[in-house]
């Protein structure tokens, strides 16, 4: 079932995964930091809400627990964007696409339909992630 991109070689997922494992170990060793991402969404939500309803943000317990601040994980998440940008542009696998292939095969080329689903899915996924504390 696995498809191949002609001439654009992916790394073995075992190799890329093992190197990622070593990266995680190095991070714990040198900085004591364990990786994560979803707390960053809470912090940036706090930033955005604070622009419009600062009193509400100040009153919510969850934003006191996860203060709107730029921390290690915030930069980690931004770094993921740039790392992927570097890897894709240097290997010619960067592709501007607003409707994924598999989605289009099943649900058609509508960008609106895909956008609505992605938005709703994102909201549900983040709610679940925060509930599970992951």
């Amino acid at each position, binding site marked *: 079932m696995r498809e191949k991109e002609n001439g654009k070689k992916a790394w073995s997922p075992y190799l890329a995964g093992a190197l990622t494992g070593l990266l995680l170990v190095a991070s714990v*060793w040198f900085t004591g930091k364990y990786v994560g991402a979803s707390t960053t969404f809470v912090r940036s939500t706090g930033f955005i809400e604070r622009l419009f309803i600062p009193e509400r943000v100040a009153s919510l317990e969850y934003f006191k627990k996860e203060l709107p601040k730029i921390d290690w994980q915030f930069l980690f998440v931004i770094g993921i964007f740039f790392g992927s940008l570097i*890897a894709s542009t240097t290997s010619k696998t960067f592709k501007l696409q607003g409707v*994924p292939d598999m989605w289009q095969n099943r649900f058609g080329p509508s960008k609106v339909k895909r956008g609505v689903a992605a938005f709703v899915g994102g909201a549900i996924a*983040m709610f679940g992630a925060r509930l599970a504390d*992951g």
Partner: protein
Amino acid sequence: MTELIYGFLTGVIFGFLLQKGRVIRYDKQMAALRLMDMTIVKFMFTSILVAMVGVYILKDLGLAKLSLKSTVLGGNIIGGLIFGIGWGILGYCPGTQLGALGEGRWDTVWGIIGMHVGAAIFAELYPVMKKTVLTWGDFGKITIPQALGINHWFIIPIFVIGGILLFWWFEKKNL
């Protein structure tokens, strides 16, 4: 400041490896959920196994501390199920979504906005969740070796061998 630079560099390397492993795009995420292509499972499980061994070695040498999150069955199970529904609709994970944006998949923008809405809703409902779901089955900060009362080096090889058998089976089935 140094801490922020370390965070950024760690993220850059992580994003680079995610993209090289082809694990961040929608088609790969969905193919895993549809049990058609286990690339992301191979990637994740390999990194978990390597990190598990490495972090426990650091811990035994006194060079690192574990960072445990509480095991709360209510939150973990219900939250996990809700997350799975959202993941299956969106087709991206929270952090790696930024990586998918980095390789040009801009439908992630809608997912990122949606995730902010989801976080805002959770922040509003947190007081209710704290009194209900997040009190159900709270075991505190536990690990499997602790719960079983045995040394972690009896548990770690079981995971490593289990992982290798799983990988062997994936390759046999060409998944």
